[in-house]
């Protein structure tokens, strides 16, 4: 591993350097509401220490709504005209948390790692520069230590930052990352910094007990149960009764990838194909043409979601658990059945 150092006060210089070549996105805090977003921003406005952004940067590669193409069919000549509409400028994600990077890697497996490669996703994802930021203290909603996705990123970044006293350790995870650090003339870090980083990460893990008070998720215990299916039906009913079918958990999930396709006709005779986020919590999600719905009761659809996040069979697809331990689904759930709660109910066999 090639490592560099940068003074704490200079760390945004990296974002500024990236700004010459990329559109820079990073954590910024809205002053009126105090809410953190991961947004396109001027590099100097980035707040590296802000709590994890309320919305994951999933939208940068998989927008909430996107026009994929416009097409026109001429009946007389039988000519078909199809034009792709997605486009993407090279983006630099600066200060990404490791949970969100893990989510991105899950999406990569889904959109790029299977039989069909999703072209729109590929266009967004390629030419991306990723700078992760190790969480030296966890936030109250976090449980990445239970899902193997933090507090420090292990793969998939170009540069990884770790705050150590008055410097940031800058680890290069790719040639692209190394070249940038060298171009900026960053000081090389000696091996002692690897030890210091490990100490910082170990300390962060030890702080979960005290800081990450919102979510205690005994994931490994429940993975077994979800995979083998030995969960009482009335436990799922108990969970399903509390589902408001809003879709929030899937929308804020860094690894959820389901989408809906809609064709919209324009007044000029052309049509547009849209892709929107979809959610397994919606009844229409699993409804088939003709009206049959294999997962009509809400508890069947909830059951499906947690299978996606927690089963071994799903892990084989992602090469990691589907849940990345960010805790966002617990923030946004009107029914109070975020993943940690579900894990608790399954573990304790809570039912009516």
């Amino acid at each position, binding site marked *: 591993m090639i490592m560099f150092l940068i003074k704490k006060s200079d760390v945004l210089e990296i974002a500024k350097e990236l700004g010459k070549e990329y559109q820079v996105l990073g954590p910024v805090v809205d002053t*009126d*509401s105090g*809410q953190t977003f991961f947004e396109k921003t001027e590099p100097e406005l980035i707040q590296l220490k802000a709590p994890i952004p309320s*919305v994951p940067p999933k939208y940068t590669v998989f*927008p909430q709504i996107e026009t994929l193409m416009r097409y026109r069919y001429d009946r007389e000549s039988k000519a078909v005209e199809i034009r792709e509409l997605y486009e993407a400028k090279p983006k630099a994600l600066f200060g990404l948390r490791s949970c969100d990077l893990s989510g991105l890697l899950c999406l990569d497996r889904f959109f790029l790692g299977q039989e069909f490669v999703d072209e729109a996703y590929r266009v967004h994802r390629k030419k991306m520069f990723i700078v992760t930021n190790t969480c030296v203290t966890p936030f109250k909603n976090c449980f990445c230590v239970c899902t193997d996705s933090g507090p420090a990123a292990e793969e998939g970044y170009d540069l990884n930052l770790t705050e150590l006293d008055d410097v940031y350790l800058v680890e290069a995870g790719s040639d692209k990352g190394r070249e940038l650090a060298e171009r900026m003339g960053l000081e090389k870090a000696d091996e002692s910094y690897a030890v210091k980083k490990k100490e910082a990460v170990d300390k962060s893990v030890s702080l979960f007990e005290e800081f990450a008070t919102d979510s205690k998720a005994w994931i490994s215990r429940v993975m077994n149960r979800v995979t083998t299916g030995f969960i009482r039906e009335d436990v799922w009913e108990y969970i399903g009764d509390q589902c408001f079918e*809003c879709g*929030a958990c899937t929308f804020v999930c860094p690894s959820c990838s389901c989408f809906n396709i809609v064709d919209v006709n324009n007044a000029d005779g052309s049509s547009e194909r*849209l892709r929107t986020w979809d959610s397994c919590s919606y009844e229409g999600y699993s409804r088939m043409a003709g009206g049959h719905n294999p997962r009509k009761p809400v508890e069947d659809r909830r059951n499906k979601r947690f299978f996606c996040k927690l089963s071994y069979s799903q892990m084989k697809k992602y090469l990691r658990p589907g849940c990345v331990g960010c805790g966002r689904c617990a*923030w946004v759930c*009107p029914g109070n059945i975020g993943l940690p709660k579900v894990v608790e109910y399954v573990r304790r066999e809570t039912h009516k």
Partner: protein
Amino acid sequence: MKQKHGVCTFCGTGCGHFLAVESDTVTRVFPSQNHPVSKGRLCVRGWNIHELLTTKERITVPMVREDGVLRECTYDEAISKVVDVLSSLKSRPSEMGFLASPRATNEETYLFSKLGRAVFNTNNISLDSESGHRNSLNVLHEGAGFPGMNCPVEDIRKAEFVLVLGIDITKQNPIIGSEIHLAAQNGTQVVTVDSRRTQIAKLSNDFLQIHPGSNTLFLGALGKAVIDQKLAAADFIASAVEGYDDFAATVAGLTEDQIVSGTGISYDDIKKIARKLAAANTAMAFFSSGISGLDEETIRCLFNVFAITGNIGKEGSGLNPVAGLNNLQGGYDMGAAPDLLSGFQSLEDVKVRSAYAAEWGSEPPAIPGRSIPELLEDESTPLKALVVSDHDEGIIRYADRLKEIDFIAYIGAFRNPFTEYADVVIPVASYIETDGTFTNTERRIQLSEKKVEAPDGVLPGWNVYTMIARKAGADWNYSSAEDVMNEIVKVTPRYAGVSYDRLRSRGIAGIQWPCDGNNPEGTPFFSLEKAGGKLKCLALSGDFEVKTADPDYPLLLMVGKAQHFWHQNNLMKKTYIPLREYNATLLDYPEGFVEINSADAYELGVRNHWTVRVVSLSGSMDVAVKISDDVKPGTAYSPYFVQDMIKKFLLGHTNILRQGEDATIPVRIEKV
């Protein structure tokens, strides 16, 4: 930052959201984590509002009808047409009507009403097609002098007891439902009373599945149970409640037989609920207000029960009518009613009219008008011209009458089947293309600032109304929505302390009215101590009769429930995901359905999706059967989301439907 804070404009909850704006278009939506109402949550509608906000189904050009066909024209031509027709009727104000929108901003609705009253001399001004919310406001005004929801959504967790009455709240106003669910998890005793088993029923400590149409009787019985068990708050009644004895006498006459046979609930169970209510230091009630909410008698009864247990007028306690549409409360606040001026001031009050005259230059006409649905329903009214602001399709139940009206002007942002009836169509900017305020169900006035440009040349509503007034010769000089608010606060004591600057200074929190010199930061909850005076136990008719089925028509059909209302919602049809979700029922049951219990289905020998004939004394309809144990044996449920059902069957029962949540029709079901 491209994230812009705003207010969700679907239901009356008024959740906060952030809209991401890129290249002048909304690209995504995200809940506002620190918003006092929604605290980082949104429902299926709110999560997909960007689909509505980017729809191409907009009205972008003014149009006039010529030889039966709408043709594009200029704003000036369309406005001249409206002014010509309305001016010619000015001396006969009973022949025109203004149908205001429960979705438009406060500023737009204020000007819309002012246009009717000050410029064209009519009081035929009203909001939506049904009067549910007005019933709630009337009761709260008469009983407590406070025409609005008593408690903020934030305080639900402070209540030790919550009664959910006849509202499918997790579907209609999901985020309020969420707060009730979280309160229940936190130890609040939640009691749901409904004729159908709803989601909140499953999440409650107690669920009483009463017979359809017995809400009033149930509440009378609850009042009796309080009094019989000597649980009334005697000290509070002595110091702060008038009319207790009359109420006690009215409910004393109820017999146990009458209660049990009418509600289907044992008196012991009702007594148990009364004990829970009385044991709680704080208690709230939630009920549907808006499309087919409770009727006034039922709400009066509820008010009395809560008054005599000391649960009105203090923190964590009170009656909470839940508005279904984003600015239904604001619409009433702006005086969009035939007998009201802004802030629930009576039109007949001379002092109020003269205060208006000081600001308007002329008094509003003194004689109350009639509501638009009333005018449409009553064939004998001379309605000749109708001006409609942004509206859903519910009103199309009066389609035949609409065709007879000489002149209809439609003013709105989104394409709407209503334009088929219109002689003039005038586009206005949508929610995010202009400034404006919305007042949610808990009286919270929230500023929504312009986020994107309107389509080429489309003007904001305040601007269009100003142009109409000026064309008609009035001296209106507003140059922004803020100007309009500055006038509203002068004629509306409950809004007196509001200004755009103050709203901005409060960040995303908004202000809950009354906001005036005494309450510069607004009024989160209704405090009797602060308001002074006493609560009035309200007089009841004493008629607790519940309609029962008879041998010829053995099933009691419930209709008019609000949860399916969104099917007819014009805005929903401009989205993709919510449309799919709300349309699933329509796709499954294109002719509509009647829901019956499995025991009744077995007896009839019918299966799911079979077509049956629902027959009442005055009509019949053929619909599919939906078998569900969410309804009790002997009862049936049919939501009116299919036009044919409305036209062929329900219109024959207009008088019954007026009873809102208590409306029932005895029917028999035949196999076909």
